[in-house]
């Protein structure tokens, strides 16, 4: 994708095949029972979340253990605005998005001066603080009880009452999310982010304002997380602090690294597999967790760049130039 001349085989590999796969999964889900629909719906929501996280952790190469905070903001924002104040879900989602972006900018400005472990710890604290707030601010969030009665997605009078309708919308939102991420990646903005991941010293030397671009990546990731949170609230109709707890961080990290951090479709592949794997293994009863762990470890050993990295196994048509180059090297 770095090549300016995108050949037809490239667009096959990067667009046509993955989108076809997503639609195939959607098709399978739509012709299955309600439970599969729910699972694939969760996978799509996590796909949105991880695509955003990938901006910060993949392209920009920074660690954030606190992106669940913004999913909580989106989820509670949508829940409160639609269930208590009868806002339109789309409007509530957009307002929560903006709010999350603004808060991410305000929180990120001081936090992103930290690096490495310190940044990871500070962002982790951000998630914990948000969790505590969602428990303690009873009048707004109803604490551990959670908020229920959240209407499904819809515009005006049109509500997506059936889960399958919602799944179609979730999948579309996810695909738009991926499309946006590709557009942002293949631009001056995206190149600046990848420069920071590659070498902050070099980025500086090329005139890239490292602090500003890190903050921008953090805000983008927060906006994606917020959308994921809002979608979750509408899809399930109920949220509680636990939904956006530390387990969300662990789950999303697993998805990101399993699928391939820093790749376009890796977060989506990871989200799908990590969502489905426990269900596939359910028949194994008490061995379930063991096999789950073994599968994860095996994938990380044999595909250290994530499952999307395995696409190199499929032969790519080489130009004479690259072959020559490899010989010279």
């Amino acid at each position, binding site marked *: 994708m*770095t*090549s*300016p001349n995108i050949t037809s085989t490239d667009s096959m590999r990067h667009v046509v095949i993955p989108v076809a796969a997503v639609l195939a999964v959607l098709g399978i889900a739509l012709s299955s029972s309600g439970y599969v629909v729910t699972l694939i719906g969760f996978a799509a929501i996590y796909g949105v979340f991880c695509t955003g996280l990938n901006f910060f952790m993949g392209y920009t190469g920074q660690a954030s253990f606190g992106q669940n905070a913004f999913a909580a903001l989106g989820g509670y924002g949508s829940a409160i605005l639609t269930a208590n104040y009868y806002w339109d879900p789309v409007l509530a989602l957009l307002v929560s998005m903006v709010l999350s972006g603004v808060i991410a900018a305000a929180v990120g400005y001081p936090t992103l001066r930290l690096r490495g472990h310190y940044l990871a710890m500070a962002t982790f604290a951000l998630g914990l603080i948000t969790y505590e707030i969602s428990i303690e601010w009873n009048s707004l969030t109803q604490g551990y009880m959670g908020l229920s009665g959240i209407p499904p997605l819809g515009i005006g009078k049109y509500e997506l009452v059936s889960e399958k309708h919602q799944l179609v919308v979730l999948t579309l939102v996810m695909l738009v999310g991926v499309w*946006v991420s590709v*557009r*942002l990646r*293949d*631009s*001056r*903005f*995206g*190149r*600046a982010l*990848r*420069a920071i*991941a*590659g*070498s902050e*010293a*070099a*980025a*500086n*030397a*090329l*005139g*890239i*304002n*490292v602090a500003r671009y890190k903050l*921008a990546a953090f805000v*983008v990731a927060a906006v994606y997380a917020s959308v994921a949170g809002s979608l979750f609230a509408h899809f399930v109709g109920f949220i509680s602090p636990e939904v956006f707890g530390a387990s969300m961080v662990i789950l999303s990290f697993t998805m990101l690294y399993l699928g391939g951090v*820093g790749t376009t479709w890796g977060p989506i592949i990871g989200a799908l597999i990590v969502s489905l794997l426990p269900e596939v293994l359910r028949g194994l009863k008490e061995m379930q967790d063991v096999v789950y762990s073994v599968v994860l470890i095996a994938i990380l050993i044999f595909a250290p760049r994530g499952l999307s990295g395995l696409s190199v196994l499929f032969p790519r048509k080489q*130009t004479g*130039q*690259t072959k*020559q*180059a*490899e010989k*010279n*090297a």
Partner: protein
Amino acid sequence: MTVLSVKDVTVRFGGLVANDAISFDVSEGMLAAVIGPNGAGKTTLFNVISGAMAPTSGTVRFNGEVITGLPQYEVSQKGLVRTYQLVQLFKDLSVRANIMTGFHRVTKGGVLAALLRPRWFKEQEARIAARTEELLDFVGLRAVADMEADKLPYGQQRLLEVARALAAEPRLLLLDEPAAGLNMQETAALADVIQRVNSQGVAVVLVEHDMQLVMQIAQKIVVIDFGRKIAEGDPAQIKAHPEVIAAYLGGTEGLDD
């Protein structure tokens, strides 16, 4: 006209004086070199000039403007672009993508432009792509353009770093030990590139150990030892300078070998 003016730059690390009141000028289009034995304070001086480090006292002017104390990215944005002693490439990106990243300074557009892609954005991307191909040819890396930067042999990595810096269209290019670790052929290829860059009107300052390279291409040489400037002049003057000979070789041999 003077592009770079270093005036009384002093850097102290606690009791250690790494740079002691160093002053020199570089005129427009000049190819200058800073040399000195290991630990003389060359890299510290370089870090001060490029904005990576603030001096204890003294000023650095670029195009007449004081740049001391500015963050490094702002110094770079003004057109003073540096490379590093240890190559700082974007390892996972292709050679071509590395160069494309270099255009940051001379292009514009953020998130919104990337999302909406107005016509100027597409034209800019097309210009970047075309210029990238030119630069690939300029440093002779076209054949390896699609390879990951990390997989290049060291000499080509150096050339790539120079090409990426050139993408930023510098007015002054600072090269920190560009020939370190290169064999003779690679050094020759690099010297050729540096001279061609300079002949296009870009001023170049290099810090270098490779005496042969410096004597061959530099028009002006600044010699520092123990943090002090001990000599300044053209290659012939430097070769004959007694203090330089003493600093480098203990005063027993000439610099020609």
